[in-house]
């Protein structure tokens, strides 16, 4: 590079005016260090501009002392530069705290609804267990009651044997004459087909007269197959027939499942 051409190009005047890019400026800087004539040129250009611009000033001498006191005055921009990072730090930590808080809140809400769900589940389980317990209590009471009935010596036990329609079937009748009640243990009867029910008959012999004690409508649903019916008759025997739903007026003898007479007869 020819230094004189470089100087004459006008680039140094632009350098002093501050019109060069950062890269160009640093090139000029390097050249000033290498070539004293470049440095001299820059200093002269600068000196001329300083004089020209100064000549515009109405030139009231303002001594350095007027600003000296403000140089290390902490109320000036120095304070701002000290405060800035602090406020920024406060800012950031403020936002961070807000984010953490929001996160914590969401977590708490989640946790709360999770716990509420758990409580609901536990409550449901509790209700269910209470119902089961109640059922068990009732069952136990019923069973105890049945046991008492069977043990009661005033109760007459009549076993009913399987008949031609169902040779394998059997049943037991427990007749409480004081209460005019019969308890039927139908564990030994098969499930009735759909549309059919068992009908219980009280019989008197000579002549053979059947009286309906009722139908067993909830045979399938009942667990222990013990049924309670009213019987105010002077029964001498009991029979069970399979009848159409709703029962019949007189027993269908072809469908006589079990039959038994009182032992004393």
């Amino acid at each position, binding site marked *: 590079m020819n230094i004189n051409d470089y100087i004459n190009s006008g680039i140094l005047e632009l350098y002093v005016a501050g019109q060069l890019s950062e890269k160009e400026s640093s090139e000029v800087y390097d050249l000033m260090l290498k070539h004293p004539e470049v440095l001299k040129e820059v200093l002269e250009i600068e000196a001329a501009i300083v004089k020209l611009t100064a*000549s515009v*000033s109405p030139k009231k001498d303002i001594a350095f002392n007027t600003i000296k006191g403000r140089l290390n005055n902490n109320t000036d921009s120095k304070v701002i530069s000290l405060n800035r990072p602090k406020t920024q730090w406060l800012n950031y930590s403020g936002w961070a705290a807000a984010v953490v808080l929001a996160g914590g809140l969401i977590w708490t809400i989640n946790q709360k609804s999770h716990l509420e769900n758990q409580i609901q589940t536990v409550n449901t389980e509790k209700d269910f267990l209470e119902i089961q317990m109640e059922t068990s209590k009732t069952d136990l009471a019923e069973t105890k009651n049945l046991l008492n009935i069977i043990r009661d010596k005033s109760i007459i036990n009549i076993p009913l044997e399987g008949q031609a329609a169902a040779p394998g079937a059997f049943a037991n009748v427990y007749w409480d004459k004081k209460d005019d009640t019969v308890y039927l243990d139908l564990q030994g009867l098969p499930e009735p087909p759909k549309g059919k029910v068992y009908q219980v008959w009280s019989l008197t012999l000579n002549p053979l007269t059947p009286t309906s004690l009722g139908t067993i409508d909830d045979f399938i649903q009942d667990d222990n197959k013990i049924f309670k019916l009213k019987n105010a008759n002077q029964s001498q025997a009991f029979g069970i027939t399979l009848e159409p739903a709703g029962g019949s007026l007189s027993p269908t003898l072809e469908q006589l499942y079990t039959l038994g007479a009182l032992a004393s007869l």
Partner: protein
Amino acid sequence: MDIDNLVVQFKKKDEKAFEKLYDMYKDSMHGVIYNIVRDNDIAEEIMQDVFIKAWHKADSYDVKKGRFFTWLINIARNAAIDKTRSKSFKNSGKNLNSDFFVDIIQSHDSLDDSTDAIGIKKFVDKLAKKCIEVIELLYFKGFTQKEASEELDMPIGTIKTRNRNCIKELREAVL
């Protein structure tokens, strides 16, 4: 001590060096600011603020990126332009006429004229209008070459060479 050493000391927060730089450039800065705000008191106030700002921002000045003078004049121009845009300034009803710096120089009375001032007056008297415009835009107003070329409707290359020639004339007159 030469300017560059003073600047090195200034960056180390040496008040003595800074005072020398202040004495060296305060009139120049005042002139540039005055040319923009056209009010002596306001210009003085801004000029002082500029030096205080420069002192506190000493760390941000990088010698490789340009002259200290260039850095300082930039701060001064920006401060002055900011002032003209402020509400209080607009409300004060200042009339910013479009006179060039030369008109201000010529309006100064000759009583306190130093040799420099006489030289400059001679210079501006015979200065061609095209020189006045280029110097006004590049140094007083801080226009970029491109902005100046648009403003003066002249190719960028012409701005560069014309500026070189104008500054040459100026140097002959004042140095």
